[in-house]
């Protein structure tokens, strides 16, 4: 039966953990709150170490909390991160996405900085500032930086944050053994979609949408082990999906089928969602990394990376590239569908469309079509935001009184 206006708005008959209010995807004040309470508190992937292999190599990154960043490798080969903001009159210091800079000189008035963030020259400093201000007062703002979990460069703009290792906890357990060799990024592209970042992370947190992908639906769902895959939730809102049952040994004989991935069974698939918007997706011969960078409540930039082993021969690399792009490239089968899905959600749930609820109600013992992965995310979201995802403005409590 179709529903009238009142029925449409009625709270779903699920436990509160099993649905969310769609205003968490559309409201500007909630988005600003997320930047402050989530993105500026959590560890975020800025790039991969293979993108800055040499001393003084740098990479710029637009942090989802707001600050533009420079990730730069020092002479000591240590990777550090700074605001890409000149302390003088606020100019952008490095304009290109990547490069090599032994000395970072602002184009505006030529103040210079080194790869450890010290100001090393202020043009005509003495003449203008006498002894009132000097290089020691003009260092760059440094941002906490750690490398790990596949060689990614993680940053945290909160000086008081826990360590990366504490933040991740046990969440990377299913991938640990697959990430012990040096990796290299071979694919990079961005997409901008008018949607909320959480909807993309949701798509990466549920496999029920295999119904959207023809080959996943027709062949994937009938593979042995498909319905054995389980979600596991970890502290800080991370979740993994994979099957403990399928082990490489069982497939020893079929090793020759393709280039594969160290320790991963052919047909194996491990997916790990890191709160608030990063996804490790290891399948066949490729590791894919998505980084969700919200630009507004209904505008999302996603960075897509494909990675292989640094030790790849050209033939192995070519095979990984083919495996990656057939499914996940910009013209790949699945990526366009996944993006079309969240684009459609953005269209239907943008402000004032009278959308009301999103249901995360499936319970299947936390197996592949259970929506527990998303529930786990929103529990953490609610905790960090001090708002309930099902009632972000505290209206339900008021209504009860």
């Amino acid at each position, binding site marked *: 039966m179709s529903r009238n206006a009142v029925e449409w708005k009625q709270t779903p008959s699920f436990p509160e953990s099993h649905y969310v209010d769609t205003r968490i995807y559309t409201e500007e004040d909630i988005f600003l709150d997320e930047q402050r309470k989530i993105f500026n508190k959590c560890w975020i992937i800025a790039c991969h170490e293979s993108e800055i292999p040499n001393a003084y190599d740098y990479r710029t990154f637009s942090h989802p909390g707001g600050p533009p960043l420079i990730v730069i490798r020092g002479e000591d080969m240590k990777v550090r991160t700074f605001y890409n903001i000149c302390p003088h009159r606020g100019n952008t210091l490095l304009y290109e996405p990547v490069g090599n800079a032994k000395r970072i000189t602002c184009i505006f008035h030529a103040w210079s900085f080194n790869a450890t963030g010290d100001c090393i020259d202020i043009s005509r400093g003495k003449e203008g500032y006498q002894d009132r201000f000097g290089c020691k007062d003009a260092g760059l703002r440094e941002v906490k930086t750690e490398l790990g979990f596949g060689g990614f460069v993680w940053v945290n703009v909160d000086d008081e944050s826990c360590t990366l290792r504490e933040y991740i906890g046990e969440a990377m357990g299913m991938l640990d053994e697959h990430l012990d060799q040096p990796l290299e990024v071979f694919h990079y592209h961005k*997409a*901008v979609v008018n949607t909320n970042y959480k909807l993309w992370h949701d798509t990466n947190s549920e496999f029920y949408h295999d119904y959207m992908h023809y080959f996943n639906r027709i062949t994937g769902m009938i593979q042995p082990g498909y319905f054995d895959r389980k979600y596991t939730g970890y502290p800080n809102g991370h979740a993994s999906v994979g099957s403990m049952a399928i082990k490489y040994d069982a497939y020893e004989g079929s090793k020759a089928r393709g280039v594969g991935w160290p320790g991963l069974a052919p047909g194996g698939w491990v997916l790990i969602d890191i709160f608030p918007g990063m996804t490790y997706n290891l399948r066949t011969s490729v590791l894919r990394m998505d980084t969700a960078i919200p630009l507004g409540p209904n505008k999302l930039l996603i960075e897509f990376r494909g990675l292989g082993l640094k030790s790849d021969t050209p033939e192995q690399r070519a095979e990984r590239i*083919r495996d990656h792009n057939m499914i996940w490239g910009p013209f790949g089968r699945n990526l366009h569908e996944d993006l079309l899905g969240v684009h459609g959600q953005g269209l239907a749930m943008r402000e004032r469309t009278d959308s009301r609820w999103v249901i995360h109600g499936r319970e299947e013992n936390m197996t592949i079509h259970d929506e527990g992965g998303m529930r786990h995310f929103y529990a953490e979201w609610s905790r960090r935001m001090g708002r309930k995802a099902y009632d972000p403005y505290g209206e339900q409590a008021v209504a009860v009184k």
Partner: protein
Amino acid sequence: MDTRTAITELIHRSGLIMDERDFKGYLDLCAPDYQYRITAYSPEIRKDMTWLEHDKAGMKSLFENLHRHNSDKSPISRHINVCLVDIDESAEEASVTSTIEVFRTTLDGGETELFAVGKLYDKVTLGHDGPALRSRNVRLDTRLLGYGYHIPF
């Protein structure tokens, strides 16, 4: 028709026929050993990337599967301008460089947006039955393609 004109027409025809989604017609323009690629350079990771790579059979199966996917149905229009035609008579082959702009037009309202720009690097074989496409490298400048597209350019 002279060889140069026939080659130029072949390149333009390949775009028009794809705009019509006449995929069989497109494959008929291709030699049996046809190789298709979409490539781009990423300044961000300082690497050449191959975004799609298929031989003729691979293209055929890509086309045959299109109707099974959920896709953006907006039509696209490939504007190709053949710039350079280098004919090697002895090898019965030509190398052709063209510029390409791809426009996308929405179904609802018909708004047109520029989708992508790049170049086509084609190899054309010159047989008795007229020129045929032997390989195509769609070299894209544009890398930000929004939610993307299923049909190659």
